[in-house]
């Protein structure tokens, strides 16, 4: 049960976002800007970084929904998402993404844990400054989103099909349509 009276039927972050739309709007716009990918970092890679950080923070909702969005971008490859969460060092991903996940892990431990060697390794595997910038901001932002979701003890359904379905919707439509999110929850019930 949530620590405060949130609107019922809205899973995870959508509960407090419906409760406080003024802060929800820029948070969703930030997610949209960070997770839809750009020339050198794909949406799937961005979502995998978000999923991995959320799993480190033990946030069930965030790792489930972003894992499902990542799988949607990966043409349904849910196993790769599980592999990255279990051990990104052995998962079948590019060495660039592996190095960026190592940077993300350091950000999760604490910003000051990121070293010039971590950055250099990412560069050696082809990461641009923009890729590194976005990785650090995704990792930092998800430490915030994860704490927001669990700090209010939001309702987080355990139905895998719900995340699969909603992951496909968000994967296609993005993060900006809050009205659609409400409809999505209604259908899941």
């Amino acid at each position: 049960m949530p620590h405060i009276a949130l609107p019922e039927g809205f899973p995870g972050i959508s509960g407090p976002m419906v409760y406080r739309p003024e802060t929800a709007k820029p948070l969703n716009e930030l997610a949209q800007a960070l997770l839809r990918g750009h020339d050198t970092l794909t949406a799937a890679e961005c979502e995998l970084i978000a999923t991995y950080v959320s799993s480190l923070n033990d946030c069930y909702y965030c790792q489930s929904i972003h894992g499902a969005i990542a799988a949607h971008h990966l043409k349904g490859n849910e196993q790769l998402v599980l592999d990255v969460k279990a051990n990104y060092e052995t998962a079948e991903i590019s060495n660039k993404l592996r190095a960026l996940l190592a940077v993300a892990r350091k950000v999760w431990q604490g910003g000051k844990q990121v070293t010039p060697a971590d950055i250099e390794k990412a560069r050696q595997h082809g990461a641009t400054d923009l890729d590194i910038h976005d990785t650090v901001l995704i990792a930092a932002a998800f430490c915030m989103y994860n704490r927001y979701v669990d700090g209010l003890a939001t309702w987080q359904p355990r139905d895998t099909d719900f995340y699969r379905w909603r992951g496909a919707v968000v994967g296609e439509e993005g993060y900006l349509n809050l009205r659609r999110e409400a409809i999505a929850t209604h259908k899941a019930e």
Partner: protein
Amino acid sequence: MNPDMKPMYLPEVENNPQPCFQTDTIRLLQAKGAEYPQILHLFAFRPEATAHLTRFTREVMRGDAPLSAGFRELIAAYTSAKNSCPF
């Protein structure tokens, strides 16, 4: 540049500020030879993402709510101290 400031890990971030008020602030402080917080470079590099953070911060820190702005800043300062972030 102020001699007390070290270069950032990401030179492309430091050297490519985009048009936004943070860039104006950087230019102003650089012209004075002042030491300034490099978070300004982070916000100036990719404003299409970070402008949302600025608006989020404005809403959560100054928006209409029962907690006073001063008390909200105190929560932010306390959390930053716990995270060993002096800025």
